[in-house]
């Protein structure tokens, strides 16, 4: 029988069928960070249990770490305790951790692919919803809660129900300035933030194949914003080239065998999906969110919509509440929205290609006077190092951006990087929820080049017009 990519990832990981619609699913890689793990380790200790397979775990602090003055440590005592607790847990249980002073430290979803710790064909989980990112490499990757973190640590397995399979096909030639970020925002605009609930999404079509691996990571990263726990892209030559030579990649003597296995990780031609969505990339523009949910998004040449343009009353009320929170009037041109801050970073858009795209816009320009803070937060110490070797840090600094240390930073504002009430931010992150970047803060999601363009103009602008 013809199989989907999802079938091909799921089936080899079934330890046992529980006969009630659930399976015991084996987990090949578990990523651990400081926020969702302490209670899991505590649970292990209380039950007198040990990690089942220590070598499958890889840990790093990312949510709470400061992006300035690293040598001073973490000033917030509550955050410091959480990071120290991770160190203690990793030490006690012998888990590899890239600590704050390690060049390999960074956002879990950036460092794992970077290290080759994410491989095609793997099942990979982490106590973080953006774990869907890793599906870009042809892996089955999804976010879990803390109870499941403890379950994976203790048993190397999870009790899971197989999702339905959705195919999102994006065809056409990608226009200039349209990125993985714009494509996923356009998909969410079409299917809504709950459109993928209960599904694992495979992204396919010419536009997806034409994306780089990093672009595919941005795409899969936000599958969860469409409601899908897992997003994935079939393996191709780009995938294999990406993995080759990375520290955790298979050794030379197993490489050919691994590659042969990975090359089968594509949906069969006649595989059937529970749902198929088709989009044409050629009509897409750079996208900007205007509301408090990622589905509240439109193209740069458009306007803030009117609540009554939406069909049902629950949605209309949601739009009215969002516009009130965002301090926006209906029918305002997106390009007329003035900004206070700009954030380039997060597990969605903090990889080297993202920084290159933003730097290409910033080069030779200055951050506008009305922008109080424009910051660039690389996704990992190694991304930062690479960017510095390419001189990107100098371009940003000369343009008036701040160049920071790696971490989640203002994507969720658990550390000191946050918006003040009422401040408006162009952000390359993934969630524009109320208060996400700081209480009362107003977030607009965009691609890195669009964020840089907004920084130099002080308001949104189509980067192609600069």
């Amino acid at each position: 029988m013809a199989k989907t990519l999802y079938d091909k990832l799921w089936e080899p990981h079934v330890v046992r069928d529980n006969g009630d619609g659930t399976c015991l699913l084996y987990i090949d890689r578990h990523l651990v960070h400081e926020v969702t793990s302490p209670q899991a380790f505590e649970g292990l200790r209380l039950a007198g249990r040990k990690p089942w397979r220590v070598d499958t775990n890889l840990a790093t602090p990312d949510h709470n770490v400061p992006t300035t003055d690293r040598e001073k440590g973490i000033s917030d005592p509550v955050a410091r305790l959480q990071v120290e607790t991770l160190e203690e847990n990793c030490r006690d249980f012998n888990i590899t951790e890239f600590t704050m002073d390690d060049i390999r430290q960074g956002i879990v979803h950036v460092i794992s692919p970077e290290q080759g710790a994410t491989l095609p064909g793997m099942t990979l989980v982490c106590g973080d919803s953006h774990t869907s990112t890793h599906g870009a490499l042809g892996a089955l990757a999804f976010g879990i809660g803390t109870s499941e973190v403890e379950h994976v640590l203790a048993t190397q397995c999870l009790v899971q129900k197989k999702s339905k399979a959705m195919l999102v096909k994006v065809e056409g030639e990608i226009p200039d300035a349209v990125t993985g970020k714009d494509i996923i925002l356009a998909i969410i605009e079409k299917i809504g933030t709950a459109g993928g609930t209960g599904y694992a999404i495979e992204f396919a079509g010419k536009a997806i194949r034409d994306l780089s691996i990093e672009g595919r990571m941005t795409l899969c990263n936000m599958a969860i914003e469409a409601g899908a726990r897992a997003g994935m892209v079939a393996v191709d030559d780009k995938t294999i080239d990406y993995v080759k030579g990375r520290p955790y990649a298979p050794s030379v003597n197993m490489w050919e065998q691994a590659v042969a296995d990975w090359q089968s990780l594509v949906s069969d031609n006649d595989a059937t999906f529970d749902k198929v969505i088709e989009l044409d990339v050629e009509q897409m523009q750079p996208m900007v969110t205007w509301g408090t949910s990622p589905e509240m998004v439109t193209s740069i040449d458009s306007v803030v919509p009117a609540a009554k343009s939406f069909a049902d009353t629950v949605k209309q009320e949601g739009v009215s509440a969002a516009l009130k929170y965002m301090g926006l009037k209906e029918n305002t041109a997106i390009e007329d929205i003035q900004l206070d801050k700009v954030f380039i970073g997060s597990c969605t858009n903090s990889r080297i290609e993202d920084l290159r795209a933003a730097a290409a816009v910033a080069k030779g320009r200055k951050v506008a006077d009305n922008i109080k803070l424009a910051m660039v937060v690389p996704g990992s110490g190694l991304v930062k190092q690479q960017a510095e070797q390419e001189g990107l840090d100098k371009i940003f600094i000369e343009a008036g951006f701040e160049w920071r240390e790696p971490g989640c930073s203002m994507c969720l504002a658990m550390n000191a990087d946050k918006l003040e009430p009422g401040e408006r931010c162009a952000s390359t992150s993934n969630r524009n929820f109320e208060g996400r970047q700081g209480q009362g803060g107003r977030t607009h999601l965009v691609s890195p080049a669009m964020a840089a363009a907004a920084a130099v103009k002080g308001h949104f602008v189509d980067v192609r017009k600069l």
Partner: protein
Amino acid sequence: MEKLNTVEGIVAPMDRPNVDTDAIIPKQFLKSIKRSGFGPNLFDEWRYLDHGEPGTDNSGRPLNPDFVLNQPRYAGANILIARENFGCGSSREHAPWALLDYGFRVVIAPSYADIFFNNCFKNGILPIVLPVKDVDTIFNEIAETEGYQLRVDLASQTISKPNDDKIQFEVDEFRKHCLINGLDDIAMTLEHVDDIKAYEQRRAQQAPWLFN
């Protein structure tokens, strides 16, 4: 995990779609290394007029009188009714921990985000899915009736209304079994240790690079 069999009590209405986990428990409270004590900060940014931080004494903070949980008629509520896509956003289990710590044992909504839905069951909270029209009706009945209560019986999968009307709901058999008996998932999985070990041996032959 505390067992859940029947829950009877006041129903609080959360009348907006897409309530995300950042709203349920804002990120500053995720710095805790414990799983209890989140109740006073449930819906913190909607519930209080000032900004809350971990360690703040919540008893003296100004309450937002418009927020549903601050209205005296919903005091002591242990059932929450909500709109579509409740619990979307992050995987933080702090969201169900906060709901539970506040006193909610049952949530009713037309739909939930997957990770949140899953996390509820693992913490002794029953998330019930009802059709939109049934949810609409309950919202209307709450608005009309001060002190509106429901009785949820998990064994018979029935919600009983004050007028004795009954609504049946669906729940996964395995999850129901775990909730009713307060069972620990890990102990159940560890009953299959031999299966896991056999799997690993087999898999290490097929994909040795995953076992290096």
